[in-house]
Structure formats: structure tokens, C-alpha cells
């Protein structure tokens, strides 16, 4: 038995092809990669650019920071330099890459320094690498420089080594997108020497960091990281090559990593660690979050969302689970997805909490079974800013006032009943006051109420009365307990409210999604889907929502809008960008954050299907994470529905095309038969007569002449029908209504058919009380001619054709009946289709006659039906409505 030939995995190959295609479509990105400032990235890039220029390439400098180095400046000589865009920001003028000018200039290659640079506010993108992606999308090859510490996934490692954390990072995906990475290497000693010679530019504000950063040990470590990262990327290429060529399976069997994340800032580190591990193992990975019983505050939720986004941007999957016990939920997920490794953070809380609640980690490890559990240090977590995670409204002064009133009321009640009660009972009255405050107003006023109660109780009731002095220390305990009860109640109340709010907002979200799903079920086309999305989104958010769909020429047009704010040119600009790039932009995002509107793309299977534009009522009021998620969910559902609708209409169009195709082929066969037959007869007869036709007697000659005449008439009918059909089809049929006596039309029709009818009897039975009909006499005559002609064709010669008409209250009914073979069952409808011919139709008009009749009658607002006639034969029944205003 032979081994099956080593064949590449089709899926992997497909992916490879897609990537190659995408790369071809996208321009090349070349990154000059260094491990520290000063290694000569910009210099190397410029040198390469000069070489390309010398070879005739269209190289333009987008932005280069020479940092005053004369060698670098010298290299700029002779290169075309794009003017920088000047942006005034806080009193200083920043010189930024002018994206619009670069796009307009559209050079073959653009040089862009410092890929990780953060743009000045007000520019289109927050980050320069986003500008670069735009340039690449436009087919401009970009050469850029980048240092290792700016790579997102290496950010932590570098920060650990150097203790300097850089804020400007680029997603790893950008680095991976690079078609070529040139590592600019320099031994650490040489770099230090350059630094001493003052050849390395250090921004002033970073001078403090310099001493930490430029230490030999650091530089060696950074260099190693840079080299390894480059090697990894090369490895990716090699792997791609191997997959493409089906060289042996080196894929470690089915590793899969799951990392548990939460709102804690240390989760970002976990995510980066998971990515590094996943890279090393070449394993897919997923970040999961377990939504427990305690609701998250606003700040926590936002951090959590940021972490999940980070995971996504690093190429991981994300999953939101819910469950009371986090360990159980994570393990269930891990097993279901065949995860091999689980990464969780080291606990930072005290053992006490584990004793009370049970240890998450213990449970996880004990029940993990075959899954490896990696516990990773959370790192030194800066204490969270103890921001109030209380999204509820600020307690207003009226609340304090209200709390004071309640206490005052309590005091009054207590005073009224004082003489019947003992002191502990008075305490109860105050407790009631505190409870009411806690239930009604926020924490501040509740605590205030508790404090006030204590004070009032002390002052009014505790002996000695009307002083704050306390004679018995027992009362101090009472005070403390009163206060504690107040605090506890208000805290409980706060939680209940938070939970309630959370579930309300979730309920609202799921209600919106449910409503949308219901609408979408009923929406048949993209426009109604757009209306449904706009309606539901406008209901869910405070503002106007518009849905833009692309026209056939690619421009976006407003398909639906709810809310007052009409879109202006700027909103449309943002929407266009979003549509073209498939990424969200505008208010609340990294791209064009200064916009008034927030735009989310409608995308399904990589196809851009449209854009949702949200304009908040309060200007600049961005949506929170929860609302953004809802908007994205709406967009996702909507995109699928639009795609379904377009697919349906595509299918319909395809069906129509197929029908047209079918019609065309039947037209061809019909034309070739119906046109050629009379033509052949005419040509044959004419050629026989040509040249005097010696040898033909007068009878034969007459026969030939008659053939020519009859066949010409047949051709004329066919051509007439084709023309008529074209008019009916194109909708250009113009009904010139007049009030006509029906007998005039019947007479004209029979007159026209006189020759054709020959000796065949025609019986007309027109009721005496027939009103004038409102019709186009020429067209209605055509209908009758076609129907009678049809009867002549199908009914045997000598059998009578009957034309009758009668009036009903709302219409006039005209019938043409014959004693032919009748209509085969089931074909009462199909005979009205084009190129349909009844069996045995000898002389024919190409199967168009009845289709024309239907077209004309329907243009009159009437109906035509074919019926089986009692006693044999067919009846064609036309009903023409009687419009008001009939002359008597």
C-alpha cells in the first residue's frame, strides 16, 4: 500500500490563496524594524529609497523625522518631500503626515517614519498606523520604521525589562501584515557609542527615561527580543510556504488556549501572555469572561470591554459566558472547545476571601482534568483609581433635604409618642426613618439621614435632653448601631438598584434585538431591513439613526432614517470611510473621533453592505460600552438580513435571467420557425416564377402567386405581433381611452379578418343594453382580432365562432367561443404566456397572440380568462371595467 501523497490541507491552502490575493490587492508594506532608537532605521529606509529612486521608482517622503541629524538630512536631498500638515494643538504647532495630500499625490512608494506615532487630535485617525492602512488600501506601497517596544504584544515584556512603558503601540496584526520586515541591527556597544557621541535623538521629556533605557543589559535584551520577533515572523512565512507546498505536518496536534479575563487591569497582561504562548504553540486562543452574579460597575465594564477588544486585536477569539461559578463555566467552555491550556491570573486577594467564598483557583485546578492550567502573575497592579462606580445620578440637594425632612418627621412622631414609649422604641422610630431614606434616596443622603437621626435622637431624647451630652455610655453603642444600620441598608439598596438597572438595560437590549429580529423576519428587501434597523436603533438610543445603503454605482444613499438630525456632508464622509474600510469610526472610536456621528459598518462575510449612522441628541455624547455592543449587535443582525435580502433578490434576478434566457431561446426557435417557413415558401414560389417560369401552366402559376401572397400575410401578422408584444412588454403601450360602442369594435375586427375567415360562420350576440365601453378602440380591436384568429386556427373549418357581449353592473363582459378541441386541463393560465402554442396550431403568430391580449386587457384594468366551454370548445372571457362618467 502506498502512502497517500502529501497533499496540502485544502482549507489552509484556500486561506493562503485568499491572503495572497488580499496582498496583491493591497499594496506592499515594508517595515524597517529596530530594537531601540538610534539604530539607524530612518537612515536605512532613506538609503533604500534613494536606491529605488535611482532605479526610477516614484518614491515620495511622507514624513521623516531627521531629529537634526545631518547624515539623515543629507539623504533627503533629491527626494520629493510631501508638505506636512500643520496642526495647532495647545499652543504648539505639530507637523503631521498629510494623509489627504498623500492620497491625492498617490505615489508608488511613500516613506513614513515612526509607525507607532500618535496623531494630533483633529486628524482623521488617532494613530499613524491607521493612516498607513488607508494608504495601503489605496494601493500605495508604504515603507515605515518601527521599534520593538511599540509592538502591542511585546509591550509588557519590554516594560518589564526596561521599566519604561511606552504608550504608543501598534497592533501585532499591522506587523504581521507587513510584506517585508527588515531588521536594522546594531551591536549594543555601537549604539551606546553613538549615544555618547550625541547621535541618538532623545526627546526631552523622555530624558528621565534615558538612563533607565539605554543600559547595556536592556539593549542586549531588547535586541534579542527584536531578533526573535523577526525570526518568528520569518517563521510564519516559512510555515506558510510549507503549508502551501504540503511539506509535512509540523502543527502540534490541536493545541488550543483559553484565557480567563476580567475587569482587573492585570488581565491585559494575561491576554498578551496568552498570545505569546499561542504564537509559540501556533495554537488558536480565546479570551473568556464569566459574567457572575454580581453586576459590574460602569468603569469595570469599560475596562473589561477594552480587554476583550485587546484580545480581538491580538488575533484571539472572545467569548462571554455566564454562570454563578466562574471555574465551572470556564472549564465547561474549555472542554467544549477542546482547549488544552487554560491561563488564569494569580489571585491578589487575601486568603480570607477564599475561606468565605471558596477558592476559584482551587476549584479550577481540581476539576481541570486533562486541561493544563497556567497561573500567571498579575503583575504589580496599580491600585485602581477608587472612582465611584456608581453610575446613578449624583445625589442632588433636594435628596438631602428630603432625608432631613424624613428625620424631622421621625423626630415629631417620636416626640408625640415619647411619653408612652421607652427609649429603645424611639430608636425604632428613627430606624424606620433611616430605612425609608435608604430605600428612597442615594447613599449620601441615606448616610446623612443616619447621622442626623443619631444626632436628633441624642439631642431630643437621650438624657440629658436638649444637649448632645450623653450620660450613659450604653447610648454610644446605640448610636453606632443606628449608623451601621443606615450604612448597611443604603449599601444593600444601592446593589439592588444597580442590579435592577443592569437587568433593565439588558432587558432593553434584548427587547431591541428581539424586536429587530421580528421586523427582519418580515422584511423582504434591503430597504425594509434598513427601516427596521433605523427604527429599532433610534428607539434604543437617544438620538437620530440613519441607515445608508450602497447604490449600484457604489455611492451611499440614505435608505432610512429615524430622528430629526439630517445627515450633513461630514457625517456622510465618515460613513463613506466606514463603508470603504469596514471599520467603525466617528464619535467614540479611534478614527475621526471628533465627528458628531458614530458610524458602524454593516458587514456580512466580508462584504460591505451599508452603514449605520448614529447622531446622539446631546452633541458629543458618545455611547457607553453596553450601547455600543447593542449597536454592533444590531448591525450584525441587520447585515445578515440585508445579505439575505440581497441574496434573495439576486436569486430572483437570476431566475428572471433564466426565464429571459428561456424566453429568448423559445423566441429564437419561434422566430426561426415562424419567420423561415413563410420566407421559404415565398422564396421558393418567387424563384419558380422568376424568369418567366417556362413549363408552368396558368393554374400552377396562380397557385405560386397565391402562396406568395398568403405567406406574406402570415409574415406580416407575425411581425405585427412581435411589434405589438414589444410595446406591451416595454410598458410603452398607451391606452387612449374613448367611449366606443362595442359593436363598432367587433365590426372592425371582423372586417379586418374578413379574408381570413372565408366562409366560416361568425355569430355575434351583442346585448341591446350594452353601454359605451371606455377603451382604446385600436387595442381592443386587436384583442378581438387575435382571439377570433386564434379560434380560426384551432377550431375545425365550418364550425361557428361566437362573439358575444353583455353588461354587468360594474363591467362589460366580452366572450369569444369556438367549438375547437378546447383548452387542455391545467393550461388555462399557461396559454397566455409568450411563445406558448396550443397543440396543433398550424398557422401561427409565433405564440404571441394571447400574451398580447392579456397585456392589452390588463392595461385597460380588465381581466382575460380561458375557460372550457360546455359541449366542447374554448371560451375566452374578457372583463372590462365600467368607469364612472359613462355617457348614456
Amino acid at each position, binding site marked *: 500500500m502506498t502512502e497517500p501523497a502529501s497533499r496540502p490541507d485544502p482549507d489552509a491552502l484556500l486561506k493562503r490563496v485568499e491572503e495572497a490575493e488580499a496582498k496583491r490587492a493591497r499594496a506592499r508594506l515594508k517595515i524597517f524594524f529596530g530594537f531601540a532608537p538610534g539604530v539607524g532605521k530612518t537612515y536605512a529606509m532613506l538609503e533604500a529609497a534613494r536606491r529605488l529612486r535611482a532605479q526610477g521608482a516614484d518614491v515620495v517622503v511622507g514624513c521623516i523625522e531627521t531629529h537634526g541629524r545631518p547624515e539623515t538630512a543629507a539623504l533627503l536631498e533629491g527626494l520629493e518631500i510631501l508638505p506636512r500638515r500643520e496642526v495647532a494643538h495647545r499652543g504648539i504647532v505639530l507637523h503631521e503626515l498629510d494623509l489627504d495630500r498623500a492620497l491625492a499625490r498617490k505615489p508608488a512608494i511613500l516613506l513614513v517614519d515612526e509607525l507607532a506615532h500618535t496623531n494630533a487630535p483633529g486628524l482623521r485617525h488617532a494613530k499613524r498606523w491607521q493612516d498607513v492602512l488607508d494608504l495601503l488600501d489605496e494601493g500605495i506601497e508604504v515603507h515605515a520604521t518601527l521599534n520593538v517596544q511599540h509592538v502591542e504584544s511585546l509591550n509588557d515584556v519590554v516594560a518589564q525589562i526596561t521599566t519604561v512603558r511606552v504608550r504608543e503601540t501598534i497592533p501585532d496584526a499591522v506587523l504581521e501584515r507587513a510584506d517585508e520586515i527588515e531588521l536594522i541591527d546594531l551591536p549594543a556597544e555601537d549604539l551606546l557609542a553613538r549615544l555618547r557621541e550625541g547621535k541618538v535623538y532623545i526627546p526631552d521629556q523622555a530624558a528621565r527615561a534615558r538612563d533607565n533605557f539605554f543600559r547595556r543589559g536592556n539593549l542586549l535584551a531588547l535586541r534579542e527580543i527584536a531578533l526573535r520577533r523577526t525570526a518568528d515572523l520569518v517563521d510564519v512565512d516559512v510555515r506558510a510556504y510549507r503549508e502551501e507546498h504540503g511539506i509535512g505536518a509540523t502543527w502540534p496536534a490541536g493545541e488550543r488556549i483559553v484565557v480567563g479575563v476580567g475587569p482587573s487591569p492585570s488581565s491585559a497582561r494575561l491576554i498578551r501572555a496568552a498570545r505569546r504562548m499561542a504564537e509559540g504553540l501556533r495554537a488558536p486562543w480565546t479570551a473568556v469572561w464569566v459574567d457572575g452574579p454580581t453586576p459590574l460597575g460602569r468603569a469595570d465594564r469599560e475596562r473589561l470591554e477594552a480587554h476583550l477588544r485587546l484580545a480581538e486585536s491580538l488575533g484571539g477569539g472572545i467569548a462571554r459566558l455566564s454562570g454563578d461559578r466562574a471555574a465551572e463555566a470556564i472549564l465547561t467552555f474549555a472542554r467544549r472547545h477542546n482547549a488544552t491550556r487554560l491561563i488564569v491570573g494569580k489571585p491578589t486577594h487575601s486568603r480570607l476571601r477564599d475561606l468565605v467564598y471558596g477558592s476559584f483557583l482551587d476549584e479550577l485546578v481540581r476539576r481541570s482534568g486533562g486541561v493544563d492550567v497556567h497561573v500567571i502573575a498579575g503583575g504589580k497592579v496599580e491600585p485602581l483609581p477608587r472612582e465611584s462606580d456608581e453610575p446613578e445620578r449624583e445625589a442632588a440637594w433636594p435628596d438631602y433635604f428630603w432625608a432631613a425632612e424624613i428625620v424631622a418627621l421621625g423626630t415629631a412622631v417620636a416626640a408625640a409618642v415619647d411619653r408612652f414609649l421607652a427609649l429603645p422604641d424611639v430608636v425604632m422610630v428613627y430606624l424606620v426613618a433611616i430605612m425609608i431614606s435608604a430605600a428612597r434616596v442615594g447613599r449620601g443622603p441615606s448616610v446623612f439621614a443616619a447621622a442626623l437621626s443619631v444626632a436628633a435622637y441624642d439631642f431630643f431624647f437621650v438624657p440629658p435632653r436638649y444637649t448632645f451630652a450623653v450620660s450613659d455610655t450604653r447610648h454610644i453603642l446605640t448610636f453606632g448601631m443606628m449608623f451601621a444600620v443606615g450604612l448597611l441598608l443604603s449599601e444593600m439598596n444601592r446593589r439592588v438598584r444597580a442590579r435592577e438597572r443592569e437587568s433593565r438595560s439588558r432587558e432593553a437590549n434584548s427587547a431591541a434585538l428581539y424586536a429587530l429580529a421580528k421586523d427582519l423576519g418580515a422584511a423582504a428587501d434591503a430597504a425594509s431591513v434598513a427601516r427596521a434597523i433605523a427604527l429599532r436603533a433610534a428607539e434604543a438610543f437617544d438620538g437620530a439613526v440613519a441607515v445608508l445603503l450602497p447604490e449600484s454605482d457604489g455611492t451611499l444613499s440614505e435608505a432610512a432614517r429615524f430622528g430629526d438630525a439630517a445627515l450633513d456632508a461630514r457625517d456622510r464622509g465618515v460613513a463613506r470611510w466606514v463603508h470603504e474600510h469596514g471599520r467603525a469610526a466617528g464619535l467614540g472610536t479611534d478614527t475621526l473621533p471628533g465627528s458628531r456621528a458614530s458610524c458602524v459598518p454593516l458587514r456580512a462575510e466580508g462584504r460591505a453592505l451599508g452603514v449605520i449612522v448614529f447622531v446622539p441628541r446631546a452633541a458629543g455624547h458618545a455611547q457607553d460600552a453596553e450601547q455600543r455592543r447593542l449597536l454592533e449587535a444590531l448591525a450584525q443582525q441587520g447585515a445578515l438580513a440585508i445579505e439575505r435580502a440581497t441574496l434573495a433578490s439576486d436569486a430572483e434576478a437570476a431566475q428572471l435571467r433564466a426565464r429571459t434566457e428561456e424566453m429568448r431561446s423559445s423566441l429564437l426557435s419561434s422566430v426561426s420557425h415562424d419567420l423561415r417557413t413563410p420566407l421559404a415558401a415565398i422564396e421558393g414560389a418567387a424563384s419558380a416564377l422568376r424568369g418567366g417560369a417556362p413549363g408552368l401552366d396558368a393554374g400552377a402559376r396562380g397557385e405560386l402567386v397565391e402562396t406568395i401572397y398568403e405567406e406574406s400575410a402570415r409574415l406580416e401578422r407575425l411581425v405585427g405581433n412581435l411589434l405589438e408584444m414589444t410595446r406591451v412588454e416595454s410598458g410603452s403601450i398607451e391606452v387612449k381611452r374613448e367611449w366606443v360602442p362595442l*359593436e*363598432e369594435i367587433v365590426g372592425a375586427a371582423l372586417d379586418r379578418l374578413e379574408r381570413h375567415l372565408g366562409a366560416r360562420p361568425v355569430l*355575434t350576440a351583442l346585448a341591446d343594453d350594452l353601454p359605451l365601453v371606455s377603451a382604446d378602440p*385600436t387595442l381592443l380591436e386587436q384583442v378581438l382580432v387575435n382571439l377570433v384568429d386564434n379560434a380560426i386556427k384551432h377550431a375545425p373549418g365550418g364550425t361557428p365562432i361566437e362573439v358575444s357581449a353583455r353588461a354587468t353592473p360594474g363591467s362589460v363582459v366580452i366572450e369569444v367561443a369556438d367549438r375547437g378541441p378546447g383548452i387542455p386541463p391545467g393550461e388555462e393560465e399557461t396559454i397566455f404566456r409568450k411563445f406558448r402554442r396550443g397543440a396543433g396550431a398550424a398557422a401561427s403568430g409565433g405564440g404571441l397572440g394571447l400574451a398580447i391580449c392579456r397585456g392589452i386587457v390588463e392595461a385597460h384594468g380588465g381581466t382575460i380568462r380561458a375557460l372550457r366551454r360546455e359541449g366542447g370548445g374554448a371560451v375566452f372571457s374578457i372583463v372590462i371595467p365600467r368607469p364612472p362618467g359613462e355617457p348614456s
Partner: protein
Amino acid sequence: MSGVDPLVLLIEDEPQMRRFLRAALTARPYRLVEAATAAEGMIAATSHNPELILLDLGLPDGDGIELTRRLRTWTAVPIVVISARGREADKVEALDAGADDYVTKPFGLDELLARMRVALRHARLSASANPEPVVTIGSLRVDFESREASVEGRPVRLTPIEWRLLAYLARHAGKVLTHGQILKDVWGAGTSAEPHHVRVHMASLRKKIEPDPARPRFIRTEPGVGYRLRDPETP
């Protein structure tokens, strides 16, 4: 008859049609002048002074209807229009502009010759200014002097408007008359009557003179155009 064959001006741009008509007409007692465009036609009409003009409505350099109007400003020569089917509005317009009759493409030669004969006869009659006192079409007899009509010898009782209608048709027997012309000449210019009034009275007239009004023998309907009393010379 003048003894000389009538001169016919044929204005037609299609060479095949000209060839066919040349062959057909010159074999009969007609002389033929041909023109391929409206401009040539105008020149030929002034220089040859034809007795009849055959005019194709679709000419490359202009509208046959316009040419008709211009001819009518200075000549009463009978004009028979040749037109394609389905252009009823054009026919009506041409007739209202002063054309005498029309034939629809494709047409039989017999039909064309009959129309030409009718047109020539009408021209001669109106030139003599002495109209025939009686018109007979088969069994239908219209006597203008006694203002009486009869079918198969039986007198027909007509209302005044029916009489005027029948007399007008008989006066122009064989010639197509548009609804507009009938309204103008029978009801009088400036009438408020509408085309359906013509139809209604025509229907009642037919009931009185036609044996089967649904298959009329005397008054033919020209769909979309008007009516024509059958030519007394054709059976």
C-alpha cells in the same frame, strides 16, 4: 378622362417600394414621377403639376404631414398617404392636414389602385362643381335632391343628424373621414359635441341601414381613424 394617362408623383424614400410601385403603376394607365425626399417632392410637385401624389409619411428629410400642409397652401391635388400600421394618430393628422386617403403598409396593389381611383374621381367631381344627385352603393341609395335614403328599395326613416351624417359619408363615398372632420362638417365648427357622439349616431345610423350592424357592409370603421362609406365602384 382626359385621354392622357394621369401623372402620379411618388414621394417615397425606400428604393424597393419605388421599384414595386413603378412596375405596378406604369403597367397601368399611369405616368410616374419619383422623388426620394420631401424637398425633391416639393420641387417635383411644383414643376410637374401631378394629378395625384402618393406620399410616404416617413421621409428622411422631413415630416410627410408637414409636406402635406405646405402642398395644401397652393394646390388641391389629391394626396394618398402611405403609412405603416399602428400609427393611427399619424394617419388622422395627415388626413386632417388635407390628405385625401391613406393605405397601410403592407398593402395590396388592388387596394392602392382603388384608393387612387376614388381620389382622382373626387378631385374631378369637385372641379366640375356639379355633384352627382344620387349615390348608389349596392342596395343603398342616397338621393341628395329629395333628401331620401333607401336600402333594397325600402325607404329608411332618418333623424336630421343621421341624414346629415349619411349624406356627408355618401358625398365622400370611398374616402376615409376622420372623427374630427365629421364633427366639424356635420355638427359644425365650434361644436361642443365629442367623438363619442359621432360614434353613437353612427351606431344608430348603422342599425337603420345595415342588415347586421356588427358586420357592417356599407359603413366601414377605420379603427382609430374614422369611417368610410364603401366605394360605389368596388363591390
